[in-house]
């Protein structure tokens, strides 16, 4: 028995030392190594999609008419300037690879403050099939460190998130660096209100994609249902939209009819713009799934008409 106690104590001691060293190792890697060399460490403040600027800006936003939610399609597709020109106050809270589990957190966190009259939520099959790790990393890197983020991170059981969380502890409580994200990064410009404007580019990629046979994750479906219930409880109107993607990407989704019927069966109204808008795969997109500024203009004009009817 003495040997067993000694063994257990050794294992515990090793685990503690290992955790401390691991913590230091992650900090070292995040600071000194290029992100390409640190496969499972994606802590990037001011990462792709200007989430840091968006979360800084939202702190000063109150009582708006329209709140946009969704993944990169959303922050690159919903051009807030169009709606502001028409007199609507709005904010685009889209973020890279945002999935329902992150949308739920963001919505609940900012709803009381923003008090929107209409919530426009971009939905498409991939967001329900994704594990959401990339987006959680984005939130950890660019948002506040709080209990809900820790709970979300732990529920996902991913080493990538644990690593980001480890570094976030150091960054937000010890380093406390004052970071200012540049408005212009490469081809992207951050526009007040959360929209990201990309320099005009056209889609020159191949025009064929293999069928994307997705399997929805139960926790994403549960979070989606929570989102809709929450919006209903707040007596706010929700509009589910599917922002257009190139015709060949849209066709690559295994079962669009099933997805449409799933969205239509929710209590909120659903508009699939892949079916109602005719866009050019090369001229109106900059890659196979994102609208370029020309495509976004056509899309927003149509959406604006639909929104106006609902906000009368």
């Amino acid at each position: 028995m003495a040997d067993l106690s000694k063994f257990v104590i050794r294992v515990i001691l090793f685990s503690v030392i290992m955790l401390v060293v691991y913590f230091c190792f992650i900090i070292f890697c995040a600071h000194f190594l290029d992100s390409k060399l640190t496969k499972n460490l994606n802590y990037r403040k001011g990462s792709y999609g200007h989430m840091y600027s968006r979360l800084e800006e939202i702190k000063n936003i109150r009582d708006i008419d329209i709140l946009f939610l969704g993944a990169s399609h959303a922050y690159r597709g919903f051009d807030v300037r169009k709606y502001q020109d028409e007199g609507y106050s709005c904010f685009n809270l889209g973020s890279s690879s945002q999935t329902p589990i992150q949308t739920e957190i963001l919505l609940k966190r900012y709803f009381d403050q923003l008090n929107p009259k209409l919530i426009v939520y971009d939905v498409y099959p991939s967001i329900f099939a994704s594990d959401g790790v990339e987006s959680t990393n984005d939130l950890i890197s660019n948002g506040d460190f709080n209990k809900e983020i820790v709970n979300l991170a732990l529920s996902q059981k991913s080493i990538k998130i644990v690593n980001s969380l480890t570094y976030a502890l150091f960054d937000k409580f010890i380093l406390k660096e004052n970071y200012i994200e540049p408005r212009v990064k490469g081809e992207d410009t951050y526009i007040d209100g959360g929209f990201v404007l990309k320099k005009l580019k056209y889609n020159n990629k191949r025009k064929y994609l293999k069928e994307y046979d997705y399997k929805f994750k139960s926790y994403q479906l549960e979070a989606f249902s929570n989102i809709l219930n929450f919006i209903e409880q707040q007596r706010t109107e929700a509009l589910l939209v599917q922002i257009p993607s190139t015709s060949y990407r849209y066709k690559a989704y295994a079962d669009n009819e099933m997805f449409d019927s799933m969205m239509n069966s929710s209590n909120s109204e659903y508009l699939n713009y892949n079916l109602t808008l005719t866009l050019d795969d090369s001229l109106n997109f900059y890659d196979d799934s994102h609208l370029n500024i020309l495509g976004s203009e056509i899309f927003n004009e149509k959406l604006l008409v639909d929104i106006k009817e609902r906000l009368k």
Partner: protein
Amino acid sequence: MLFNSLDFAIFLPIVFLIYWIACKNRYYQNTFLLLASYFFYGWWDWRFLFLIAASSFLDFTLGQRIFSSSDRKEKKRFLIISIVFNLGMLCFFKYLNFFIDSFVDSFNLMGASFSRRNLNIILPVGISFYTFQTLSYTIDIYKGKLNPARNMTSFFAFVSFFPQLVAGPIERASNLLPQFDNKKEFSFKECSNGLTQMLWGLFKKVVIADSCAYHVNKIFTGYESIDSFFLIIGAILFVFQVYADFSGYSDIAIGTARLFGFRLMTNFKTPYFSTSWGEFWKRWHISLSSWILDYVYNPLVLSIRDWQAKGIVFALVLTFILNGLWHGANWTFIVFGFLLGLFISTEFILRFQRKNLSKRIGKRNMSILGWFVVMITWTLACILFRAESLTHAINYMRLIVDPSNWIIQRYKGLQYLLQVFFFISMMLCIDWKGKNFDYSLFFIRNYKNSFLRWSCYIFLCCMIGLYMETNDQPFIYFQF
């Protein structure tokens, strides 16, 4: 419950502590291990438990009958029942749909029109492993090499022993069963060894095998649009994936068994340093190769000894075809086995020429040449192992040798590919350094300086945390 899952990380310490603290005698230890093993196995699908219990019960009873019977014919009858039941079960669950498909295909080729109607059969995890284990038990009793198990609990625990239940090593009753006969005493050294071996196995699995798998899946799936260079890289990566995956699994299994005071047989002895095919099969999946050698090859060679060298070649090819078929119900595995049989037979046929060549060019050069031959031919065989079908394998190989495909295109994710090669080199260095030990990382345990020792372990943990593949990749041998 996979070894690299969170479920197992919770299950193992609980079982370990209860086993050593609460189980005071052999009976309690075996009973608790049996319950833990059934819980572990039932985690996949509780229905599998009936199958393993039935198999254990039948072989336990038949073992007793074979031993106690004085009539040679009766002994043989009981043995045949055991063989028919075990192989029948294996054939039904693993090969029935394959046989139906092959039957329909061959008749359709001849012009007859048969419609395909496959049965919806779930393959129980680990069935190929534990049926071979129980088969060896009854055969050894029949041959008089082994006495039957004294009590049922020990035997049931032996068949279902969770560290090696789902993917081996395929233990011989003569090695593992007697270990259930004595009360286990806790050994600090054995448990530390077990943990070290598990850590090494986990590193090989989650850092090397799973990272290789990411690229291998990408290359083998999209092979039609990939150039020859990266097709070769894909095949080489699979060679290391299958080794790191299975030897990693074996290390975790053997390490886990050590935590409970059991010694399982070594399953891999740095096979990629083999300089001949004969040597390779003494180092690769040793528990299966030695099983097939003892129960298939040797009796076969003895029965056709009049054929002399031709008999050996025939037995080798047939044995390796069976070895290939054991891996799975697919023609790719049969051709894979046939190729291996061909390689090792060729080596046997050319044994005198090889000796002469060795004298001419020197032993060292001969070893290097031998190593190249083994690695190149093994890589070729591995393409068949990985391919979904024979057409897939043939097209893959055709594209490698197609001169119009000899261009180097851009590969997305090249930096990650280089990282994988770095870790493969690291694994090979450690394998080389530890090639004479029980397991490769064992040499670190000889370091007297505990700071150095712990630093090595912590380094491996850090590498696992930073570089493990996060997409779920089941162990390759679980499908067998």
